């Protein structure tokens, strides 16, 4: 219990940021028309690809002789890149079609 409390205390600023972000996330998309549900889901999917930064940090901090971390980190970088690149390109393709219509 004490440990959890101290975790809370040490990270109080992050916890604050988390709470504000939760409300922000809700607020930002609450007026989305049904037409855009699919692209929005796809765009959000690309944004959580930010997890790739964690895999890069692993690789940067890994000891060059720690093959366990290097191999798994390498795998994570590929997975994260797939999420980011695939996510943004697919979303862009979907939205391209909306643009055509605007003409």
């Amino acid at each position, binding site marked *: 219990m004490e440990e959890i409390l101290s975790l809370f205390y040490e990270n109080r600023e992050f916890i604050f940021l988390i709470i504000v*972000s939760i409300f922000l996330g809700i607020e930002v998309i609450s007026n*989305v028309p049904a037409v855009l549900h699919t692209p929005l889901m796809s765009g959000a999917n690309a944004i*959580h690809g930010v997890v790739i*930064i964690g*895999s890069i*940090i692993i690789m940067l901090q890994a000891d*060059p002789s720690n093959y366990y971390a290097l191999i798994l980190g390498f795998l994570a970088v590929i997975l994260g*890149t797939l999420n980011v690149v695939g996510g943004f390109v*697919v979303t862009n393709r979907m939205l391209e079609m909306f643009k055509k219509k605007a003409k």
Partner: protein
Amino acid sequence: MNTTILGLSILELSYIVASVTFILGLKMLSSPDKARKGNLIAGYGMGLAIAATILFKEEFSADKWLNYSLILAGLVIGTVIGMRMAIKVKMTAMPQMVSFFNGMGGACAGVISLVEFDHLRHGGEISAGMLIVILLGLIIGSVSFSGSMIAYGKLEGKIADKALPAGQIINIGLLIAIFGLAGYLAFSGHLSMSLMYTLLILSLLYGVLFVMPIGGADMPVVISLLNSFTGMAAAFGGFLYGNQAMLTGGILVGSAGTILTVLMCTAMNRSLTNVIIGSFGGGGATSTKSGEQGTIKEISVTDAAILLAYANKVSVVPGYGLAVAQAQHTVHNLEKILEDKGVDLNYAIHPVAGRMPGHMNVLLAEADVPYPKLLEMEDANEDMASTDVVLVIGANDVVNPAAENDPSSPIYGMPVVKVWNAKNIIVLKRSMGKGYAGIENELFFHPKNRMLFGDAKDSLEKLIAELKNL
């Protein structure tokens, strides 16, 4: 020393900029004319955050050449494969593509947790708090990965809906085992790698069993839910590294994804628990009323064409069949021909028609169907009584009257397009097969309804040819 501080300042600044682009991107994705720009802005922000991390997170040292080359190799491999997949995928397969990429993000988060756990074992500073964050990242990331892969397989038609007998009990048991094990790992101080792998396998298994029995009509909700799971997993990573960009990005997607999930459930008039527990298509739900079926009337292409040509008002209800047949351009041609004949035509869009919310809008937008012609379900239902002909193209569950009048039906209570209020109904359908939810549709036996069997694109082309001759 100065250069390090400069580098770290640039790094933190990049994270702040990236976080702002994520927020702006999501905001702009919510409005049709800014959406594309929003996606690009968030993409640039992501690129900036990645580049800054590689350049400034750690001071460059030459003996880490292997690390740097592996990072670059990983980025290149991921980019090439991701680009190829995203560019080659057909519009109809977009939903499963999103699910696939979502799974990749989940897997990435899971792998990060594995490495960090191993890191802690080898002399990292151990605290129950950090362990909890790592374990949650592993659990949520793995569930998201295996769940997304099952959703992907289902939408690709490679995996059938299957419910285990007593599936609920097994799932609850699994959850208890997962959290029991995680609690033990977090508080016992016994950092066993084999227990960690057991946790990984249990979580992967849970993801599979969680999505397995959920049927087609609910798949959009599941993908959206898993999307927000991955967001949360990314946020746990952000917490672990004290990284604001990961934290804001992850949490934003986590909360926005949850709201989107709830919006979709509302569109189907069901609660999230109901979607997860009372799954469709689990076999038991099939046709309780098969004995009471009436007769089916077919319509010839010529009769259908005449009916359409002399109508004042026609409404098209598209469904997944339209997407499968790739008939969006054909239906747009039909629309133009009918408009030339003075017929007022609109599209009645059910929010969850297809395999994802907005699926039909995306599809029809591809064929340049004008935006104002797409009516939302509520507006379409108001107009239904004055509509002469409803053309149901490859839709099934979203026009099923059982949702209104059969309390025993699994889709009872879901809002549907009330096509039976129109004067005539023509259903374009490949065969008498059931919809994705695996239930009978008494609409096909409705006195006002006539069936035009065949592939949607084929039938539409024949209709167009016939209309040109009239």
